[in-house]
């Protein structure tokens, strides 16, 4: 599959996770690599890009007995972007599915 295309989908999935709850980087990496074919290290560049675009922000949280962890939180802009992109994606998938089904029917 096209790499650029996949990248957009990964971003959408990361936003979906962060829309549920704040996570630290490793959480996100585990979540994605459990469900999709993606190398563990690819998540961190995605998170950084989302941060540069203002869709997520980070904060440090001191855990008991350990160095402070960097948490990612979705911003208001991120939420809006996520809602729009989600709808766009679901419509797109619906159309693609319909087209593929049509091809099946012709055979």
């Amino acid at each position, binding site marked *: 599959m096209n790499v650029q295309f996949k990248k957009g989908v990964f971003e959408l999935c990361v936003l979906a996770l962060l829309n549920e709850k704040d996570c630290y980087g490793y959480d996100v990496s585990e979540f994605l*690599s459990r469900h999709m074919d993606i190398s*563990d290290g*690819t998540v961190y560049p995605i998170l*950084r890009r989302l941060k*540069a675009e203002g869709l997520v922000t980070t904060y440090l949280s001191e855990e008991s007995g350990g160095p402070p*962890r960097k948490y990612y939180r979705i911003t208001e802009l991120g939420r809006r972007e996520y809602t729009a992109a989600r709808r766009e994606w679901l419509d797109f998938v619906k159309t693609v599915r319909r087209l593929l089904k049509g091809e099946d029917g012709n055979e």
Partner: protein
Amino acid sequence: MNKEQYLVALKKALCANRVEDIDDIISEYDEHFAHKLSDGYPEEEIAARLEKPEIIARQFVIEPGADPHRRRGANVFIKTGVIFLDIILFVLDAVLFAFIAVFGAAAAGLTAAGACVAAGGGFFPMPVMPAAARILIGVSALGLSGLVAVGTIYYALFVTQINRAYFRWHRGVLTERISPPLSTAPRLGGKLKRRLRGVALISLLVFIAAIVAAFVLMNISAGAFEFWHVWHWFE
């Protein structure tokens, strides 16, 4: 490739790609290793599952205009506004930096004064009191100077950090180069932070202990609570 080799290679590749905030990125991968290691994976396997450092480093390069509809383009009005903002903030910034020197001078002055008084006066006309009390007051001034010195260091780091954050934001508005915004709170390494905290705590304890001891000592040697009357300090 083990953890050490992976992180070194990643750092080199990030440098080669002129990516910013390298230490921040490296610490995130370091943490990734730590989590995986505690789950029982060997270092070689973790590194293999991360992807090659060169490929990862390239993914950290954010191409300008890669996603044009998300780009908030700065028009000429915003750019002019930013330049006026610069002029105002430059003045404010000069004051903020000047205060680093003020606090630093206060710390140095307190140190000198404390040392002089403890060593036996000289420049400092001290009121009548036992020599031991004078030494204790000198020591307490030294403790106070330690506190001010730590405060100065924190303040200087803070001023530097807000300048860096502003510069990053400024560049983001005026140019096409995109980077994540910087936090305005300085991030200190664990070692430096612990050391500064240690110095501050010891200084505070020395200051309080010495000043209380001096007071008690003067009470006892004057034979009264209001020793300043006994020694005619204000007459």
